[in-house]
């Protein structure tokens, strides 16, 4: 019976799986073939060519906010890089702010004070359950309806808040400042070696050293010392009202601030939940045992609770970082010149190369997502439980 080849074709799992997969591959290939045929036909009918030559053509539009020089004569390729940089800028600063705020709110949520933790709870519920796009638009409309330049809100002497953005002094680095910068880098490298050495010494002798304070002092004071030795090689350019606008200083545009506030306040609510559940996941016995050992409360937090909580926190935190980066694509709604707005929107409309441009944009986001995942996985490996030995 079992040797009947026809029966085997139907009922032997290995053989069956081969023809099922062959069938699916065939169907898929057929689908791709027909779709590409129709697409080619449709493109030809509309007179749209294919190919990536358009990247070298002049873009013909201006970008209001750019980290690198850009004029309308520059190429679409350069517009792409402007977009990528702007997306990265708002994502990285957003991740930074959201992490700080999220950890803060997560800890407040666990506060023993009923009122305090419920304020945090209300914040979390209200921001989590309202679309991030709406929050970005709301922040943006608050920012662009601030007072005009003439009636700017002045604070901390040199900062001005207006409907055109936040104006602040900008540093001008003079000759010799690079020594200060280098001393900062060297201080960081030096302290990492010092930390290793002091840990080693602690393991041998049992003496504890205030490593954190020593290293912080070195990192902070070395550059300051060099700064004064070099004769303070830095000046500030202050914003001053001239005519209808400010001159000098630097400015954070409302588009950027709106994106930053919207993204980080929204994501922080989610991060605070992962932080809270991470800390709660550390079993009560751990805290009790460390109290029984006589550890001080900040040591309990730093040496016992946080290392174990991080193992739970990092994976969901990674997906929040990914979400923030993807949500940065909403800049188009308020005119922040990110990848989707400039290259994916205006370049697409001007060239009509929908397929090529959407492909490039999507692949760029995939690369960003993969990079964040990769970095966070590397970090995750360092905090995970190492062996049982």
């Amino acid at each position, binding site marked *: 019976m079992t040797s009947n080849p026809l029966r085997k074709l139907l009922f032997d799992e290995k053989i069956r799986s081969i023809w099922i997969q062959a069938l699916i591959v065939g169907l898929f290939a057929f689908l791709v073939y027909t779709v590409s045929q*129709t697409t080619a036909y*449709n493109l030809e009918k509309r007179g749209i060519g294919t190919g990536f030559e358009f990247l070298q053509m002049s873009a013909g539009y201006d970008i209001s906010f750019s980290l690198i020089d850009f004029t309308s004569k520059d190429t679409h390729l350069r517009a792409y890089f402007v977009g990528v940089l702007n997306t990265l800028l708002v994502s990285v600063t957003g991740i930074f702010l959201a992490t700080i705020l999220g950890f803060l709110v997560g800890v407040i949520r666990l506060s023993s004070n009923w009122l305090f933790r419920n304020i945090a709870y209300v914040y979390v519920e209200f921001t*989590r359950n309202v679309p991030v*796009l709406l929050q970005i638009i709301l922040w943006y*409309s608050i920012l662009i309806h601030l007072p005009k330049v003439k009636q700017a809100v002045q604070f901390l002497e040199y900062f001005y808040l207006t409907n055109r953005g936040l104006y602040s002094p900008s540093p001008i680095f003079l000759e010799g400042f690079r020594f200060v910068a280098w001393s900062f880098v060297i201080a960081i490298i030096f302290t990492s070696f010092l930390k290793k050495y002091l840990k080693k010494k602690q393991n041998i002798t049992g003496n504890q050293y205030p490593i954190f304070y020593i290293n912080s002092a070195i990192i902070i004071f070395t550059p300051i010392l060099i700064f004064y030795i070099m004769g303070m090689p830095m000046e500030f350019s202050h914003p001053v009202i001239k005519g209808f606008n400010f001159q000098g200083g630097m400015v954070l545009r409302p588009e950027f601030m709106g994106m930053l506030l919207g993204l980080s306040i929204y994501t922080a609510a989610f991060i605070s939940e992962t932080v809270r559940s991470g800390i709660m996941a550390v079993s009560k016995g751990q805290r009790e045992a460390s109290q029984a050992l006589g550890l001080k409360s900040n040591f309990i937090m730093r040496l016992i609770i946080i290392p174990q909580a991080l193992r739970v926190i990092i994976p969901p935190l990674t997906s929040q970082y990914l979400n923030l980066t993807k949500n940065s694509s909403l800049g188009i*709604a308020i005119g922040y010149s990110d990848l*989707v707005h400039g290259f994916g929107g205006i370049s*697409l409309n001007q060239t009509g190369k929908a397929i090529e441009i959407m492909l490039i944009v999507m692949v760029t*986001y995939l690369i960003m997502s993969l990079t964040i995942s990769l970095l966070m996985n590397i970090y995750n490996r360092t905090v995970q439980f190492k062996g049982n030995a």
Partner: protein
Amino acid sequence: MTTAAINNSFLRSKAGIWLRKNLFSNWVNTFITLLSLYFIWEVGSFFLNWAIFDADFLVNFRGEEILDRTYCSKNIEPGLHGACWAIIDARFYQFMYGFYPAEEVWRVNLTFFLLPISLVGIFFDKIPYRKFFIYFTFLFPFIAYYLLYGGPTLSQVGTNKWGGLLVTLFLGVTGIGLAFPLSILLALGRRSQMPIISSMCVIFIEFIRGVPLITLLFTANVMLPLFLPDGISPDNLLRALVAVTLFQSAYMAEAIRGGLQAIPRGQVEAARAMGLSYWQSTRKIILPQALRISIPPIVNTSIGLFKDTSLVLIIGLFDLLGIGRAALADMSWIKLYYEVYVFVSLVFFIFCFAMSRYSLYLEKKLKTDNSK
């Protein structure tokens, strides 16, 4: 009675003990409590004054009916700062139905009324006649299509006339409903033993999860007409629906995969040993258990999708937020953006908060069910 005695009897009462334990356990705690009270007072009074006490609802402070923004109290008296809710009233029809013809609007109302009934059977498993509710759930999409779009005896209403809450709910509910079967197939495919099938599913899921929804919406909007032969040109709402469904199916598939992974191997092996085929064991043994576990994460991704439907305004559809922005572009109501955005936020909040409470309720229920 001395004051000390009164204090003591209060401190020993239940409320007193609670207060001391939760708000005034030591001086740091007391300080935080006072700071919190001050914060709540400042924010709360500011918001309540703006939204309720100083606000105009239908008439302004002179008692006139508000016909456009020039009648708002804050635009007459510079000293007044309250909200002017009349814009919501004036635009309420659009917020609910978009540009749906007024004489046909009973069809939308009927659909809104039937929607919760169609969901009862899925959300609660201990109701009488649950079977009939489930039948109705499967029937509901056809009824809703007939009512909203039209057909025999009902005049046709093009989707370009739809808007507001109707579009938001349509995209949310239909997207989730269509994504559900697709996501089960994707999750099963990802765990399949067949390498080609599982890698195709992995690539699809990870690709969709790696790119922002807005790029999918753009792609669907610009490229679907290019991919399809002449004569077949899906309208804008349908294009958005395709993008939203594919997007949601990838996220839901991951939620279901989590449920599948939680099923002990012994269940599969026992089912196969009983002589059940792959599909029999999947349908009768694995999926019922796996889906039960994955409902809370499915609800959570659904909340995410429901919020994300607001992105369709970027491709020119008028969902709840899109209608709000359209109202603000109207010269007679311009500049009342806080009123509009707060209202839209509130609507989204009500739906999403309800869903998240439901998901919490399910999680608790699952915990107690499993510990029996």
